[in-house]
C-alpha cells in the first residue's frame, strides 16, 4: 500500500495510477497484501555459486534442509529469478559477469551475500584479484555470516529476506541508518553501495572499471625495500646429478649453488633446454618468475625466471636452472622447444611482467585484459587504488 517510492528500485506504473483514484485505494489494500504475500513466498534463486559456499547452498536445496519448502527453486536463467545468491569468492575478473547477470534479472530482485567472501572478501580482501565484498558493486539485501554458512543459515537468510520484502512494501525499509559507532569497524573501509556518503558516480565508475581501461598515474612509486629472496631449492630430491658437469663443461657456469638452481646466461638457456630435452627431460614442470626491485647498493631492477624439467616415467629426474635478466631486457622464450611453455610464460608475463622474446602470443592469460600493472611484482601495492572495483 504505502509503498515507499524512494526505498525501492522499482515501481508499479499502472498500479500506482489506480491507487490515486479516490476510494479505490481502500479497496486495493487487500490486493496489495496479497501481492506482497505472493512476492515474498515465491523467491526463486539464481545461484551465483563460485566456491565452497555453493556446496552449502546445494546442501540447502537437498533433503535435510530443503529450501523448496518455502517455495524456493533454483532457476538457471537470471530472467526468471528473484534472488541472486552470491555464494563464494568473487574475483575481479568475475565481478563484471556478476554485475551483468544482476542487471539482467528483472525487478523486483534481491541479492543475498552468503559467506564471508561474498560479504567482505574474507581474508582475501586485500588481495589484488578479489573484490572486497560484493556490496561494492551490488545492492546486497541480506548478509549471511559464516565461512561457509551452514545450510540452515541459507534458509535463515531467505526467511530474513522475506521479512525485508514485507517491510519494504509496507513502507519502512529495514536498513535505513547504520549505527554510527560501527563506522570504520569494517576493513577495508571501502565505500559500499549502501553508504549514505558514497559518491553516486562511484557505482558507475566501478561498473566501467572492468569494461574500460582507466588511465591512472604510475603506481610503481611505492617505496619497498625487501631483500630479494633466492629461489628456494624447491626440488631437493631427484635433482639430476648429470646437470652439474653439463653446465660446467658446455655452458661455462662457474659455481653451482647448493640451495638454489644454477644461474644460466640468458642467451644460452634455450640451448640448454634443447640439450636437456635430448637427454630425456621431456616435461616442462614449471616456469616461475620473481621480481627483484632495484636496491640501494646500486643493483639494478631484475627478473629471475626459474625453469624445471623432468624425465617422464619411473625414477623421474629433475633438472632446474634459473635465468636472471635486467628488468629492461627480455628472456628468450622456450616455446619452440616446449610447447607447454606458451601458457606458463604468458602467466609469468601476466603476473610478474617478464617479457619473453620470441613468444608467439604474449598477452594476459589470467587477469582481465585491461588490468594495469603486474600484481606479483614486489612494488605492486597490496591495496592498489588502480585495481578495478577498489
Amino acid at each position, binding site marked *: 500500500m504505502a509503498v515507499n517510492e524512494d526505498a525501492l528500485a522499482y515501481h508499479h506504473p499502472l498500479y500506482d495510477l489506480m491507487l490515486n483514484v479516490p476510494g479505490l485505494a481502500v479497496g486495493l489494500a487487500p490486493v496489495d497484501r496479497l501481492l506482497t504475500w505472493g512476492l515474498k513466498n515465491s523467491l526463486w534463486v539464481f545461484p551465483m555459486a563460485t566456491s565452497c559456499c555453493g556446496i552449502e547452498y546445494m546442501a540447502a536445496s537437498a533433503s*535435510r534442509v530443503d529450501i523448496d519448502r518455502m517455495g524456493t527453486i533454483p532457476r538457471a536463467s537470471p530472467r526468471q529469478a528473484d534472488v541472486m545468491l552470491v555464494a563464494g569468492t568473487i574475483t575481479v575478473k568475475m565481478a563484471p559477469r556478476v554485475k551483468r547477470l544482476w542487471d539482467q534479472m528483472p525487478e523486483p530482485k534481491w541479492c543475498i551475500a552468503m559467506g564471508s567472501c561474498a560479504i567482505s572478501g574474507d581474508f582475501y580482501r586485500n588481495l589484488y584479484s578479489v573484490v572486497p565484498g560484493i556490496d561494492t558493486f551490488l545492492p546486497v539485501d541480506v548478509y549471511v*555470516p559464516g565461512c561457509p554458512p551452514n545450510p540452515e543459515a541459507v534458509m535463515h*537468510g531467505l526467511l530474513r529476506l522475506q521479512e525485508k520484502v514485507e517491510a519494504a512494501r509496507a513502507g519502512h525499509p529495514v536498513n535505513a541508518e547504520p549505527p554510527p559507532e560501527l563506522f570504520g569497524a569494517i576493513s577495508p573501509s571501502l565505500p559500499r553501495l549502501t553508504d549514505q556518503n558514497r559518491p553516486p558516480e562511484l557505482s558507475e565508475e566501478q561498473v566501467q572499471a572492468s569494461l574500460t581501461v582507466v588511465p591512472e598515474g604510475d603506481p610503481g612509486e611505492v617505496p619497498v625495500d625487501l631483500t630479494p629472496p633466492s629461489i628456494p631449492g624447491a626440488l631437493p630430491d631427484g635433482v639430476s646429478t648429470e646437470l652439474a658437469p653439463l653446465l660446467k663443461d658446455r655452458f661455462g657456469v662457474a659455481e653451482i649453488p647448493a640451495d638454489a638452481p644454477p644461474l644460466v646466461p640468458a642467451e644460452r638457456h634455450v640451448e640448454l633446454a634443447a640439450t636437456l630435452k635430448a637427454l630425456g627431460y621431456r616435461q616442462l614442470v614449471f616456469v616461475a618468475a620473481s621480481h627483484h626491485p632495484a636496491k640501494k647498493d646500486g643493483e639494478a631492477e631484475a627478473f629471475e625466471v626459474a625453469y624445471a624439467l623432468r624425465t617422464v616415467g619411473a625414477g623421474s629426474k629433475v633438472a632446474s636452472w634459473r635465468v636472471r635478466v635486467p628488468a629492461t631486457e627480455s628472456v628468450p622464450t622456450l616455446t619452440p622447444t616446449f610447447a607447454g611453455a606458451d601458457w606458463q610464460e604468458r602467466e609469468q608475463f601476466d603476473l610478474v611482467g617478464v617479457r619473453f622474446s620470441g613468444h608467439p602470443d604474449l598477452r594476459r592469460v589470467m587477469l582481465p585484459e585491461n588490468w594495469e600493472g603486474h600484481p606479483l611484482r614486489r612494488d605492486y601495492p597490496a591495496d592498489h587504488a588502480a585495481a578495478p572495483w577498489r
Partner: protein
Amino acid sequence: MGYLLDGLKSMWTTALNAIRPPFTQEFPKVLRPHPERYHTSFALLHDETGDEACTGCGACARICPSQVITVKLGKRESAITQKKRGYADDFTLDLTACLVCELCVQVCPTDAIVMLKVPELPGFRREDLVLSMPRLYENEKSKPLGWSNATKLMAMQDPKAGAAKPEPSKETAPAPAAAGAAS
C-alpha cells in the same frame, strides 16, 4: 536395453523413497543438534570473580588469519578485586570477514573468548555482523556457549593425558550465563 533396465531400477528407487519418511528437518521449527565444537559466532566471558576475563593482550588479534579482531588495551584497577590489570577498552570482531577458524579461542590465555553454538542472525547491513564489545558480552548471557576454550583445547593436546578428554555433556540447552561457566 540397458537404459530401460536402469530406468526401471531408478523408478523402483524413487518409488521406495516416496513411501519412506523424508529426512527433512523443518528448519525454523526444528533445529538440528549442533556438535559441541560448532564454529559459528563468538562471545566474551566473565571470569569466576565476575570480572571481565579479557586482559586486552591482543593474542587473538595477532593470530587472526583474516585480521578481523581489533583490541584496544587499557590498564585500570579492577572494580571487583581492586587490583590493577589490563583490560580491553574496546574489542571488535568483524564477523563479515571471519573465517570461524577458532584460532582466537585457542590462543586466549584467559579463556575469555569462546564460540557459540548458534549462528549469528543474517543481517540487513554489514554493520549488523560486526560484533562490538557490548554485543560480545551480550552473547555470553543470551546464547548457548560452545564447549571449547583455550584450556580445554590445550588439555586435549597434552601427550600425558593422551587422547582421553572429557567429552562434553550432550545437553543442548543454553549454558547458564554464570561467571566461570567456561573456566
